[in-house]
């Protein structure tokens, strides 16, 4: 196990190893939902919350169920089931007790199950052999980094809608180019901290 301070992991997962800009995870919803700032913030918060909790759950499931019973080959099924079950549960709890939040976030919840960032963070947690504290900081940092990226992108895209862009570039292609430029900017942070 590599000894990296949890805070370093936290900062690094927000900036230098950002889920979107360096690992390309969660791109589908990043492109589809980054048209307006309020919805982007809503999805960002939902992803951060779900990501943090499911990664912590998966940490316990991995170290206390998967490893002792030698079930490593079933890891993917177990992780995706935990994520799907957690999202379903969260949806039911929100609907029952916090209906205003449910209506604000409700449409995003089914989208989250198939968000690659959630499963990706759990898999990275396993492949990098993080301990519990590192896992918590890594998950929270990744979620915040994802939320930051989608919010920034929504801000840029809302300004972009009035500009004249070549017809073939409109929509997804221009979003990808902006993402590329933002990724270049985020590479500038890599002198600061580095994991992996």
């Amino acid at each position, binding site marked *: 196990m590599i000894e990296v301070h949890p805070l370093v992991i936290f900062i690094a997962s927000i900036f230098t190893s950002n889920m979107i800009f360096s690992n390309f995870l969660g791109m589908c919803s990043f492109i589809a939902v980054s048209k307006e700032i309020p919805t982007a913030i809503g999805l960002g918060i939902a992803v951060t919350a779900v990501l943090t909790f499911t990664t912590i759950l998966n940490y316990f499931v991995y170290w206390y169920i998967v490893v002792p019973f030698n079930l490593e080959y079933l890891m993917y099924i177990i992780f995706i089931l935990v994520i799907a079950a957690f999202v379903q549960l969260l949806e039911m709890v929100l609907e029952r007790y916090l209906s205003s939040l449910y209506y604000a976030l409700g449409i995003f919840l089914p989208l989250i*199950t198939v968000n690659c960032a959630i499963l990706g963070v759990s898999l990275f947690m396993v492949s990098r052999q993080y301990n519990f504290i590192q896992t918590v900081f890594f998950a929270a940092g990744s979620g915040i980094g994802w939320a930051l990226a989608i919010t920034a992108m929504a801000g840029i895209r809302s300004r972009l809608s009035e500009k004249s862009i070549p017809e073939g570039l409109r929509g997804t292609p221009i979003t990808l180019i902006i993402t590329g430029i933002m990724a270049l900017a985020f590479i500038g942070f890599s002198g600061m901290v580095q994991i992996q």
Partner: protein
Amino acid sequence: MKLSEIKKIFNKGIFSENPILVQVIGICSALAVTNRMMNSLIMGIALSFVTAFSSFTVSSLKDKTPKHIRMMVQVLIISAYVIIVDIFLKAYMTDMSKALGPYVGLIITNCIIMGRAESFAISNPPIPSFLDGLAAGFGYTLVLLCIATVREILGFGTFFGFAVMPAEFTKWTLMVMPPSAFFILACIMWAANNYRTKKQLKGVEKK
């Protein structure tokens, strides 16, 4: 099944409804593994295999799956096939399995597979669903290989690991880094969009 129908399915999956260029789904892995040709090829084959077989299974089980838990069932079917791919890679191509890392597992959350299952396999018989999944996988592989060609030749000076550029060629470090993947995919999409609008304009003029 008639040959023309098979042709239609493949044409749809590879060109007119290409999962990456037209539907813009499943681009996470398309960007992550494309720095080498070999990685992209293996990833493409793996995804085609999983999409084809999971479409086949979803379609065979469609009468027996209850409506409200069908997503769960689909995810389980997909993960089962992904595990097969993962074990196969670990056993026979250890280097490749290490190079692809967690992206093999992330095939589960690749929206292409779920998309094909939901939009085609759920309402069609097994054999066409199988072909439809295979076609979508080929469309995905094609785009991956296009991106990887540019990135590997300019970034490493090689093509499938063979040196193709002259020795004094300066490697473009940018091409190995993540941003280049975004730029190249954007350019390919731009070209595809222009091609499609041109085709549509021609069609309108003919009418």
